[in-house]
């Protein structure tokens, strides 16, 4: 079904409000002052010059702020700034400027003098590596990979690297905080407002019932606004100290160190196969960087126990602690990095074995979960492979021209896949006697079209026209539902909405009336409540845990890339993606998601990186002029995305799995394969910058 987004007019007329658009009476502008060194201890903050500037209300340091306790997840940083004198990374907040205007606050920041005892920073590649989880770096073993390697007719052993990269959402993170007595209201750029509350209440030792988070629109999340970051607590702290509302909208420079990013990763894959390309053993070792103190693990090895049938599998996970802020999940976490390595290795295995890359995937298709033999809740990957190959013309790709002017044309493909994350959901549905309906749930609008999907589900379940369904979202006063990340919203909250609508139906049935007879029966409104629960009341469920099924989403991506051999530059010419993800509720928003995801993958493959300066340890560039993300001219019109017809009733009441991230996986591996196809150069590091192609 195609339905335009319910919030279209608001967004198109400038009326959709984002966090920093709120200006409570008397609001002060806050700017963070960050430590200027990547490692060391804070000796002092001299804010005299700053405080003397006109329009500066205060410069807060540790002495002015409350003592914060250690926080719990989903706080991303458990030991908040201002707690001790340790500097774990450059940009670590050591003061907060409050000004009557943005200009005054920003000018003051520049003249606050921060005195540090600097220490040599720990650089990427030279940090301490430790097992990511528990005592042992090995997180999964099945069969005997060493024997498999010894018996193999064909082997691939390679290391793949990806640079650290920031989410670079168009809206930087930001929070407006206002206290009314003991009650705190936050207008916050978030993906999970409900989870802000326990973090903030713990930080201030206040009753969670006194905290409300309002967040109707978030200007891009991609995981960067998923967990709870220090600035959110600091905005509230500054407001409390100042006795006035505070707006802390992060400057773009601050965004690089105040919130997270996808980590730098190094992954080694060893594939052992027989002469027909059937896998005998898969080994996958991954290491990602974490902060010196705070931890983030990217379990990139999941893909290697989920995609392909292999009798032997061994997975290792490590982290490396360095002097950077802590990473965080980014659109297509886990599999985004994991498939970069696994799918690149599979493409190399295909070349080694002399087998078409698509045939190699088909030969290794997993009928059941390779990890534990569970059947899939639903898996139409083979249909996706076939349809994708047909649309792309994969089988006769090399019969088409291999040159277009200066461009050498190459083709690449990869499997796409995401684990199925599920969170509990809750929703309320009101049906009025006048035939209108209202859906309520604290989902967030990060651009996925979630509210529209919820409206559609309610409309369908209630038998009410879509244009009579209103949706209220983005407020913790509404039913608290799962977070808007992990591609989980349609499954979780969508199911809760369906359930609430069915509850309405049940109440009508109990009253013995139809909806159109409510007025006559003197019934103004019926309110239904619905939830989506996970097995054993869990708060999170991955991969169908607690059910008889393994759950995952699938797809295939084919890309045609032009390479200019004189310069090593790459251009995307066309892409075809076909996906198996369960029922698609809204074809329009789903298409936007998949296109956006492919572009996300193109950016990762060809240009995105945040470099840690190799002597000073901080991010080299903290701006968008030295850090590249794709622009309109990079993206051709010829991006063809489609879904295999599917209804997965085991995954959710409405038959859907999740799609927001699936399309971003595999793209980089497909691009690298296309580069090799075009010019014979194998690049095992993303982004594939021009000089890496020339070096080959």
């Amino acid at each position, binding site marked *: 079904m195609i339905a335009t987004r319910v919030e279209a007019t608001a967004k198109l007329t400038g009326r959709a409000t984002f966090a920093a658009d709120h200006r409570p009476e008397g609001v002060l502008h806050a700017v963070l002052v960050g430590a*200027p*060194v990547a490692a060391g201890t804070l000796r002092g903050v001299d804010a005299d010059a700053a405080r003397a500037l*006109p329009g500066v209300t205060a410069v807060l340091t540790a002495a002015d702020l409350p003592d914060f306790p250690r926080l719990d997840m989903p706080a991303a940083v458990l030991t908040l700034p201002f707690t001790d004198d340790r500097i774990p990374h*450059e940009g670590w907040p050591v003061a907060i400027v409050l000004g009557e205007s943005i*200009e005054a606050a*920003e*000018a003051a920041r*520049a003249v606050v*003098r*921060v005195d540090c005892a600097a220490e040599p920073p720990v650089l990427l590649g030279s940090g301490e590596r430790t097992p990511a989880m528990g005592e042992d770096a090995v997180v999964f073993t099945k069969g005997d990979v060493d024997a498999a390697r010894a018996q193999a007719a064909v082997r691939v052993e390679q290391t793949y690297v990806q640079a650290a990269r920031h989410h670079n959402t168009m809206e930087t993170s930001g929070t407006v905080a206002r206290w009314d007595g003991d009650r705190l209201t936050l207008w916050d750029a978030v993906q999970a407002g409900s989870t802000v509350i326990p973090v903030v209440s713990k930080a201030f030792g206040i009753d969670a019932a006194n905290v409300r988070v309002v967040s109707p629109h978030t200007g891009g999340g991609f995981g960067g606004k998923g967990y709870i970051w220090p600035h959110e607590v600091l905005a509230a702290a500054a407001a409390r100290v100042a006795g006035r509302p505070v707006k802390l909208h992060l400057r773009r*420079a601050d965004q690089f160190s105040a919130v997270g990013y996808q980590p730098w990763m190094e992954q080694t894959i060893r594939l052992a196969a027989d002469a027909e390309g059937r896998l005998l053993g898969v080994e996958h070792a991954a290491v990602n960087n974490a902060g010196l103190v705070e931890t983030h693990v990217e379990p990139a090895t999941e893909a290697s126990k989920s995609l392909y049938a292999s009798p032997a599998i061994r997975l290792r996970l490590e982290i490396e602690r360095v002097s950077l802020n802590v990473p965080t999940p980014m659109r297509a976490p886990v599999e985004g990095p994991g498939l970069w390595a696994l799918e690149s290795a599979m493409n190399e295995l295909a070349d080694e074995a002399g087998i078409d890359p698509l045939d190699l995937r088909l030969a290794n298709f997993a009928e059941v979960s390779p990890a534990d033999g569970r059947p899939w809740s639903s898996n139409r990957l083979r249909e996706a492979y076939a349809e994708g190959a047909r649309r792309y013309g994969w089988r006769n790709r090399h019969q088409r021209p291999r040159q277009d*002017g*200066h461009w050498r044309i190459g083709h690449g493909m990869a499997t796409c896949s995401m684990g199925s994350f599920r969170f509990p959901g809750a929703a309320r549905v009101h049906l009025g006697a006048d035939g209108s309906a209202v859906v309520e749930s604290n989902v967030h609008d990060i651009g996925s079209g979630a509210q529209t999907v919820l409206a559609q589900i309610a409309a369908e379940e209630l038998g009410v026209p879509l244009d009579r369904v209103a949706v209220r979202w983005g407020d913790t006063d509404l039913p608290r539902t799962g977070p808007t990340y992990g591609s989980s919203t349609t499954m979780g909250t969508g199911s809760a909405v369906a359930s609430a609508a069915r509850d309405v139906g049940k109440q009508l049935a109990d009253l013995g009336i139809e909806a159109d007879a409510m007025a006559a029966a003197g019934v103004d409104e019926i309110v239904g409540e619905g939830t989506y629960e996970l097995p054993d009341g869990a708060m999170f469920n991955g991969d169908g845990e607690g059910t008889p099924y393994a759950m995952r989403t699938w797809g295939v991506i084919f890309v045609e890339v032009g390479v200019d051999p*004189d*310069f*090593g*530059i*790459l*251009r995307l010419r066309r892409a075809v993606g076909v996906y198996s993800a369960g029922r698609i509720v809204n074809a329009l928003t789903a298409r936007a998601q998949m296109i956006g995801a492919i572009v996300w993958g193109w950016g990762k493959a*060809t*240009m995105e990186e945040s*470099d840690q*300066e*190799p*002597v*000073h340890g*901080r991010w*080299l*560039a*903290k*701006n968008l*002029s*030295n850090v*590249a993300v*794709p*622009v*309109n*001219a*990079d993206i051709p019109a010829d991006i063809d995305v489609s879904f295999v017809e599917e209804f997965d009733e085991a995954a959710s009441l409405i038959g859907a799995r999740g799609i927001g991230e699936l399309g971003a996986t595999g793209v980089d591996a497909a691009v690298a394969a296309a580069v090799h196809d075009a010019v014979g150069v194998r690049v095992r590091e993303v*982004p594939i*910058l*021009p*000089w890496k192609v*020339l*070096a080959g």
Partner: protein
Amino acid sequence: MIDFAYARADSPATAVAALRDDHATVLAGGTELLNWVRLGIAAPERVVDIGGLDELRGITRDGDTLRIGALTTLNEIGEHPLAVAHAGALASACLQAASAQIRNRATLGGNVLQRTRCAYFRAEEPVPWPCNRRSPGSGCAALAGLHERHAIFGWTDECVAVHPSDPAVALVALDAVVDVVGPAGPRAVPSTGFHLTPEEAGLREHRLDPDELIVGYRIPIEPGAQAYIKIRERASYEYAIVSAAAVVGPDRARVALGSVAGKPWRLPDLVGVPLTREALLPAVEERMAGANPLPHNGFKVTMARNAAVRAVLTAGGAR
């Protein structure tokens, strides 16, 4: 930004007087100055806005000379029939610079005076590493750091950054003349000598004195074809990794390279070289023999050579 004082100039003479007497900083489009002030690269006490000086705007033909006023915007130049007809490399360079929004404000005078995009230089204050251009005498962090995008000509240990302007490269290939006015009156500076490298002049970036104003450019009109090639990893809205301007006339091809040095790098003219890839590659390579790459940017020598060849062939009509 710091709280600077502001006034508008009503004539070029008033502006020059403001530079001389008030040590004011010129504001034209503002697309560079605002970022300099935000980052702490510049901290003007007084700003004189010359944006209203319409006499410094416009493109005219004066016999064999194309005149472009310093306040003409990049978009205005990019699509002006006279510029397209007689200074195609410049028009193309203008349209490949920045974004449409920036090009509607950015002036030619301001654009050639832009400063390097080196990430070390562009750090906001407090600048956390050595940078002689931010703090003379502190050193150059890029030398031992990340310098893939930095110079292969004309650098010293003092600075290895490149000049990022696209139009400046075309002006050098076109042998344009820069008209400036100062307290001592007007003078003309060949664009080939306008910008300076550290090898030539230490930290001095160009020959404009602090109390002088660029008022316009004169470009000789000659028969031939022109092209500007800009190489970058994304297709638009990004600085060049390398670039090249080619002005191909009946008896010679003039070529200038961009983003390879602290100034546009004019190669010795190609005279009597057939306009084929086979002939041009060694000819350009010979003219680049003095290239002196840094440890991690040797690829730029190849890229720049190929950009020069591509520009000449594109101008010459080859695809």
